[in-house]
């Protein structure tokens, strides 16, 4: 839908009809008052279907054997504009580089999705989920295990060859 601009002229002084404007307003509000159509969504019962590129709570992809796909390359903490990713790399017993510590502070995160975009091994993703309320603040720092356990679908990346996602 194109964005249009509606220009409203200011009324000239001396020609302002205050009462008429007020009554017009009353009529308008009355029409809306009796109109049963509402825009409210009854949230827990009615759920919006999230768009394929909706960016929410992160997901860490895992290999078939349960290891995280992350190789601790350090690109996501580098690219992260909110500085919300903490990463300490290390070596596992098979000599593979892996993240000893991988934490995302969902509070600091601005959900720009750049971590997913930059990830060379498609390990970290932003996901199609926003229902991540918690009772304590520290629960919002997601560690590696928690990120791996997220089971919501991950966000699709923008495809330059199909810019409108059709």
């Amino acid at each position, binding site marked *: 839908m194109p964005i249009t601009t509606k220009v409203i002229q*200011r*009324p*000239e*002084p*001396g*020609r*302002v*009809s*205050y*009462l*008429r*404007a*007020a009554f017009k*307003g*009353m009529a*308008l*509000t*009355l029409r*809306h*008052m*009796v*109109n049963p*159509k*509402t*825009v*409210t969504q*009854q949230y827990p019962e009615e759920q919006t279907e999230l768009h394929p590129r909706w960016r929410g709570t992160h997901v860490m992809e895992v290999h078939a054997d349960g290891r995280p796909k992350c190789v601790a390359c350090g690109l996501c903490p580098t690219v992260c504009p909110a500085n919300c990713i903490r990463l300490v790399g290390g070596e596992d017993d098979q000599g593979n580089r892996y993240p000893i510590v991988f934490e995302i502070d969902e509070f600091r995160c601005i959900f720009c999705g750049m971590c997913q975009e930059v990830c060379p091994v498609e390990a970290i993703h932003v996901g199609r989920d926003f229902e991540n309320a918690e009772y304590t603040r520290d629960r919002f720092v997601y560690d590696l295990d928690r990120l791996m356990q997220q089971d919501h679908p991950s966000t699709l990346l923008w495809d330059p060859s199909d810019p409108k996602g059709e």
Partner: protein
Amino acid sequence: MDPIAGVPLLVSTSLKIAIMFGVVMLTVAYTTLAERRISAFIQDRLGPNRVGPFGLLQPIADGLKNLIKEEADPGTASKFYFLLGPVLAMGPALVTFAVVPFAAPLPTPWGVVDMIIADVPIGILYILALSSLAVYGIVIGGWASNNKYAFLGALRASAQMVSYEVPLGLSLIVVFMMAGNVTLTGIVWEQQQLGFWFAFPLSLGFILFVVSAFAETNRLPFDMSEAESELITGFHTEYSAMKFSMFFIAEYAHMLTASALMATLFFGGWDLPGTWDNAYWYQGELIRGFDASGAPMAAAPAVWKTLLTFAAFAAKTGFFLLLYIWVRWTVPRFRYDQVMELGWKVMLPTALAYLMVVSATILVLDQVGISGFYFGLALTGVSAICTVAFVFFLDRGRIMVGAAAPRHGRVGPRPTFGRGAMSSEGATTGD
């Protein structure tokens, strides 16, 4: 039939107080719900609909929450007056309803019970006196908070009170002239006898009363004392939990009283169109009118009449409550200077002039000897002319200027900002 007396009077009055208190409080509670739901409907939303069916238990949940909520106690507030504020605001709001008749008299085995808690002879003066007291609650609360926003709100409330009390009183005087009485039962009776609800013969008075009543109850578009965009929440900025709730209840109780007054003074109170439900104590007799010879005719009170008239009263009051809410969610807030200007430059002279016109008309009609239905009709015509003239002046923006338009008389280029203001041309146009 005889009026109720003695012990039954005591019992019936106590019962009426208890019942009406309950009804008023319940109405207030549900008006808050109505406010929220209607505002939601106006904005194409649903409003609170989670607590109970259709959200009907929401006011109870709100009340419970406010009762058990932790109260913030401002350290620099004046403790005693801080506490006194809400009490002073809520008390008068509740007791004013005592003199409003809400139904036709009810016949009982012990006598006829008036459907009014206290039919005091000073009637409306009692209401004026007490509702003026209510502003003390706001002023004291705002001052005692020791908060500059609260204090500004309180100042505005008192200034607004003073400004609109006068047109309110003046618009009531025309009613008194018509009724020849200040008791509300008398005013209802006169409207029944005239065959006209006063809203028609006193149309401009009704308009002035409605506007003044809006201002008196601090409702939008006159809620200067708690203008959120300017004063946080004005006089009750520092209040929380139940103390805030009491201010809130007071505001809605005021709305209820003002709506009941509009219904009673200008829309016949509990009167239903027609004459069969008339009832008035005349020289110890409950009468329904006078016959051609001037002899009183006895009224026939009945339980069904009481119930039906109460329904009529409730419907009228309910309509004005709806109007309050409706206006609030339509009309934006005035600027403070506009409120003052409207009060002193428009309302007061208009009310005075209208008082002159009405009294002159009544005098002329009395001299000519016209009374009854034609008296009302003539007055309706005169008032209609006044109303049209008033609206013409108002509507053309000659007296009231909408906030959107610049003050009239100012001609020339608008003040420019940005690049224009930086240029030498912009600098020379400023004076």
